[in-house]
């Protein structure tokens, strides 16, 4: 869907490239998270997709077409864009903010209005309450939701998100991440997402691109990045608890043991939980096995420390 082909960018007056010889592809309907320390070139990479920054070498193609061939405004109107600090227009209402791109595309006012209501509901804001509010009356989390709604307004197939949840408190961020995953499950957009937070990357990404000093160091699914970091830099960036992060990605179903093993034990976890949650439960109860229950509360299996260790040892495909 989005293809970077030997892309290089050097800012005027800078001694080194911001991005060097970058090649990778973002698959349609997937969330690709660009992650790395400050100044690694991740924002530059994202901004070359909608040509807020023009590459010096190589090319970026969208659906097989070089982005530089399109008229720049048309290209951008077809790509959702959400950024840190949101960048809502403070002199416009929520309705006008969300309806901005449809307005630029010349939609009928009634169609824009319907679309605005639909989107506000999608991001969990009551249209009757929020449509005519101004951004200065919104909380940080509400403003971020409006920012996401605005990016989705014209139903673009591609979404660029530059640290969209960077400026809110951890609790709100957690909620926004949940809602984002929920929305993404329904809409299946192709998303390029920039963050410097590895936990966020692991949680949201279908694929993670780890960047360092303008180069792509590793590009893989989160489990493999955690299990097989490409080098010491990635291992360091991923952090000492990468085993636990991996567990949080592994569903319990992959290590399910027979239900009878859990008889007489008091610990229980839901069948949809991750192995990390199962391990936490095991540590809390002090027993080496916990029971697994379905939605109705019936015991359907068990998970023990040995199962988790065995699952962890098995190489990833």
């Amino acid at each position, binding site marked *: 869907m989005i293809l970077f082909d030997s892309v290089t960018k050097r800012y005027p007056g800078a001694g080194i490239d911001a991005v060097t010889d970058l090649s990778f592809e973002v698959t349609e309907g997937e969330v690709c998270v660009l992650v790395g320390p400050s100044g690694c070139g991740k924002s530059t990479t994202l901004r070359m997709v909608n040509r807020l920054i023009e590459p010096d070498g190589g090319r970026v193609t969208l659906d097989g077409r070089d982005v530089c061939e399109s008229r720049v405004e048309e290209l*951008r109107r077809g790509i959702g864009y959400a950024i840190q600090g949101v960048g809502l*227009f*403070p002199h416009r209402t929520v309705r006008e903010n969300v309806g*901005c791109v449809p307005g*630029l595309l010349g939609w009928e006012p009634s169609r824009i209005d319907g679309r605005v209501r639909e989107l506000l509901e999608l991001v969990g804001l009551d249209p009757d309450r929020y449509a005519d509010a*101004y951004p*200065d009356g919104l909380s940080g989390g509400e403003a971020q939701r409006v920012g996401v709604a605005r990016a989705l307004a014209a139903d673009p197939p591609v979404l660029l998100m530059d640290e969209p949840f960077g400026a809110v408190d951890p609790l709100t961020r957690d909620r926004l991440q949940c809602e984002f995953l929920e929305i993404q499950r329904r809409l299946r957009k192709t998303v390029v997402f920039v963050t410097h937070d590895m936990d966020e990357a692991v949680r949201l990404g279908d694929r993670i691109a780890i960047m360092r000093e303008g180069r792509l160091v590793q590009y893989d699914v989160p489990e493999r990045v955690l299990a097989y970091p490409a080098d010491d830099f990635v291992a360091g960036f991923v952090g000492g608890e990468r085993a636990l992060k991996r567990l949080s990605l592994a569903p319990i179903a992959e290590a399910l043991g027979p239900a009878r093993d859990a008889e007489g034990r008091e610990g229980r976890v839901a069948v949809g939980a991750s192995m990390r949650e199962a391990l936490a439960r095991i540590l809390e109860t002090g027993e080496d096995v916990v029971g697994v229950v379905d939605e109705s509360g019936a015991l359907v299996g068990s998970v023990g420390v040995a199962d988790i260790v065995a699952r962890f040892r098995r190489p990833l495909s």
Partner: protein
Amino acid sequence: MVRRFRVDSGTGVALTHALGPWASLPVVLLLAVAGLSLGAGRDRRSASARGWLAAALVLALVALCEVAARRLLAGAAPFARVSIGGGVWVAVFVAYALVVASRREMGRHTPAGRALGAAVPTGIAALLASGRLHDLGILMEYRNWADRFWTEVARHLAYAAISVGVAVVIGVGLGVLAYVSARSERSVFATVSLFQTIPGLAMIGILVGPFAWLSHTVPALRAVGFGGLGWAPVIVALTLYALLAIARNTYAGLAGVPPATVDAALGMGMTRGQVLTRVQLPLAMPVLFSGMRTAAEQTVGNATLGAFAAAGTLGLFVTQGLAEQSPDLVLLGAVALVVLALAVDSLMRAAQRLITPRHGGTEAVA
């Protein structure tokens, strides 16, 4: 101050001497204001009492000058004049400053504050309308010049309005240019600041030559009154002076727009022009408008330059008064100018409140 005739250098007369028993009124008011300022607390009620007493003092001083004038002129020659002396002007000024200060304490835009603000202008207007200031020298001068006076007021305002209008168009353009192109920023501000350093008379002097030549070579220009003297050099000079405040505030307003907002606007596919007209300029408006206000106030004062280019304006009365050594005529021009400046100021403030959006906008600086 009594003058035996219009341009006499005059003899000073103390207000107490001229007024007799009436003289105690301003003294009592003054003591009351002073007592309130020292004794009472800093709450709104005492501010209101102080303000109204000060307003009464202003009006009493003006009205009593007329009483004094009538007493002094009784039995004098018909050419005799009574002018308000320096001491009284200072007292009026100080009392009026007290009114303004009290109004600020009460809150400028509360109903009580507005009422106090209107008290002095209304009182003076009522005194003028009732003919009670008839015998003061400044009004005698006004009667001599009545027709000319209103023509010059209108001309003064017209020059100022046209100049500010033109300066807004050019100044906003220059401010945008300076903001958009870092290369032109220095030269734009160097140029408009340079205009500011040229004294008014010199500016007219510089323009007279080329303008005279232009009107000589292009007869069409001469036909509309364009020439080395007259409206042309005045309006051009006033426009050049007004550019700095407008260009500078346009630039400051644009620079104050949050970068994330501009980034989002561009990223969503607005053209450069749309970003400027739909996002940057609306958000810069409060700062930009405060620049226009500064420019308007400055221009109303500067428009007296017209007198040096044979183009009239209120400056005419000042220069004419100086030439004739008639202090009352100088005062007529000066007082009218002060009143005009105050009126323009409150008009622009009101407009600013109307135009400033409730939401967003960069912080106004002045």
